[in-house]
């Protein structure tokens, strides 16, 4: 190789690099990290990605953010914490995404929440509901974990408030599954019940794969429990109501929002599925905006009941875009400041967000955005009765 050709090559290489990094800089990358294939909750992750992509399409069609297009980089974590941690570093360090949405499983967010905080890269959860996900690493530390979804503790507060205000409730029992999800819920149930002066007279547990809970229910029945608060996943709650039928014992049943899963409905069967009352963010009495997004995504959605995650994730992306716009760039610390002090309201699917986050509030959706829900003729519909009507926002304090 002659010196000239060497120089020529170097010049060509430099210009190629410069060109590619210029093209690179024009697009803003957003990451999604969550389970898309490996566990029953993968359907929620798939719906979430559909929602994010829809929001990105809408923003790009309107000219992008700061004149730059948004793109989505998706990583499947197979619901495994080690894979999820690895994805997080890959997205932030290699792909240079400016924010990460997801994950599907709460446990995975808890496994990597130190990473967004160390790398000052905002993470906006839109599926997992564990209370601790958005807690700061230490009391005064900057916190890069945000959420646009349901929060376990706020639901628990709702269920406790219902049981406490129901004049027909004399004896309350707790029923939870033995997984981390069930045990986390039990902790919230016990703490909030004590704070509100509600004393459960029995607490029973069951396995997530159990097909028969008659023994536990017979104990509650013998103790005279007339209202059960249940914290478990969809399929075991389905088995629970089936066991209730076996011993013909139907107390007032208030459950975690997992009863909205298709797996609950199919396990319980049409009639028994109508027993539990629970809270969720969307019922099938949709607002026009929700209906519009639903119609757009329905052909691609594998599970109808997972639509709420599509809506949460759509809104999470909209809020992220608004923060980039206000920050005038994608630097993490500036995005955090913008997120915690958004000036312009953000038009979302769930609602219009006016200052959704602050330095201390990292939940965009709170108890007053939740709906009481039941299954009716195979649809998730809003539920109301005298107890629900009498509940005031102050009853939901945590």
């Amino acid at each position, binding site marked *: 190789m002659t010196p000239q050709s060497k120089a020529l090559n170097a010049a060509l290489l430099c210009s190629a690099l410069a060109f590619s990094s210029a093209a690179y800089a024009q697009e803003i990358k957003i990451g999604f990290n969550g389970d898309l294939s*490996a*566990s*029953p909750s993968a359907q929620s992750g798939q719906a979430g990605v559909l929602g994010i992509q829809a929001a990105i399409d809408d923003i790009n069609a309107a000219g992008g953010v700061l004149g730059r297009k948004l793109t989505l980089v998706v990583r499947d974590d197979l619901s495994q914490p080690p894979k999820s941690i690895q994805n997080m570093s890959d997205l932030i360090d290699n792909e240079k995404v400016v924010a990460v949405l997801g994950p599907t499983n709460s446990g995975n967010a808890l496994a990597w929440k130190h990473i967004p905080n160390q790398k000052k890269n905002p993470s906006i959860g839109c599926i997992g509901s564990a209370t601790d996900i958005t807690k700061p690493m230490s009391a005064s530390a900057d916190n890069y974990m945000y959420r646009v979804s349901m929060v376990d503790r706020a639901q628990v507060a709702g269920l406790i408030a219902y049981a406490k205000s129901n004049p027909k409730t004399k004896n309350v029992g707790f029923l939870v599954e033995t997984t981390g999800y069930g045990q986390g819920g039990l902790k919230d149930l016990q703490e909030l019940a004590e704070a509100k002066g509600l004393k459960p007279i029995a607490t029973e547990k069951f396995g997530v794969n159990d097909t*028969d809970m008659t023994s536990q229910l017979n104990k509650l029945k013998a103790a005279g429990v007339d209202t059960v608060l249940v914290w478990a996943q969809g399929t075991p709650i389905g088995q629970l109501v089936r066991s209730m039928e*076996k*011993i013909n014992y139907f107390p007032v049943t208030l459950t975690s929002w997992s009863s909205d899963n298709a797996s609950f409905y199919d396990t319980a069967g049409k009639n028994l599925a109508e027993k539990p009352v629970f809270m969720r963010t969307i019922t099938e009495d949709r607002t026009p905006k929700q209906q519009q997004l639903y119609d757009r995504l329905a052909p691609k959605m594998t599970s109808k009941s997972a639509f709420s995650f599509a809506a949460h994730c759509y809104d999470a992306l909209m809020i992220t875009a608004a923060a980039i716009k206000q920050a005038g760039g994608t630097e993490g610390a500036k995005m955090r400041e913008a997120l915690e002090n958004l000036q312009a309201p953000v038009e979302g699917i769930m609602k219009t967000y006016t200052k959704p986050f602050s330095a201390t509030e990292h939940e965009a959706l709170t108890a007053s955005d939740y709906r009481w829900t039941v299954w009716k003729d195979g649809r998730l519909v809003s539920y109301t009765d005298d107890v629900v009507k009498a509940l005031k926002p102050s009853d939901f304090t945590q």
Partner: protein
Amino acid sequence: MLDVYLQTLLSGLAVGGVYALIALGFSITFTTTKTLNFAQGEFISFGAFIGVTMLLLLSGLASTTTAVPSEAASAWRYPAAVIGAGAVAGFMGILIFLLAVKPFAGKGGMNWVMSTLGFGVMLQSLGLAIWGPAPVMVPSPLGDNVLRIAGAGVRPQELLVLACAILIMVALDLVMRRSRIGKAMMAVAHSPQTASLMGINVNLVMIGAFALSSGLAGVAGVLIAPIASASLFMGMGFALKAFSGAIIGGLNNPRGCIYGGFILGVLESGIGLWQAQWREIVVFGLIILVLAFRPAGLFGQAAVDKV
């Protein structure tokens, strides 16, 4: 109070029937080849989905993503799906023997443990690629109305599983003890070399044992699906419990395995009346006790090594 105990017994027997059926599969391969198929759990899940697919194909009905319509399981279709799933799983059993067990069988070492586990992982990944991760509810051919027996409730499908488990157990027991094939299997179990000298095709008997054991897992999958709903993650839990039942009853005694499965089911349901969260501790505590004091299981004969 009596109805509570009856409910506990019935519920326990219903779950125990499932354990017994799968435990029997473990015993069949162990007695003939001294190896175990650790992919048994995946065979159950796989079998359940073969059953789902067959129900849909035979009835020509479309499935929603999460449930099979109840008409699809009516009349002859459900038994056909059970047999079909058994046949497909049995064929996969021949594959797992030829690919993952035979190269290592009789060579000492535990290579077959890893290779059968690996086969199970492959089977699960294949299943996920075909059917996806969502659980699918399968209707029972006998309907879903609770039957009342002296105040205790039970679903028809649970009685069906119980009946099938007992029927298959009795049939296999007869075959093993009365027929030439059964005697050949017992001869191979006793000593492959001697059996071979007696003119028994040892290889064929071993293939047969794996086909039978895997076929049983497939059948169990379709039978459990209306109770637990078909899911590619459902098999593992059942297989672990069934294996525990087999250990309690005695791995080298098919009858003992069945009893072990039933004992475990009733025990679990009984512990639920006391403190459900202690269930696993009691169950696995019992296994350790059995292994310590009766290593061959409660119903197993102690092997006498003659020098």
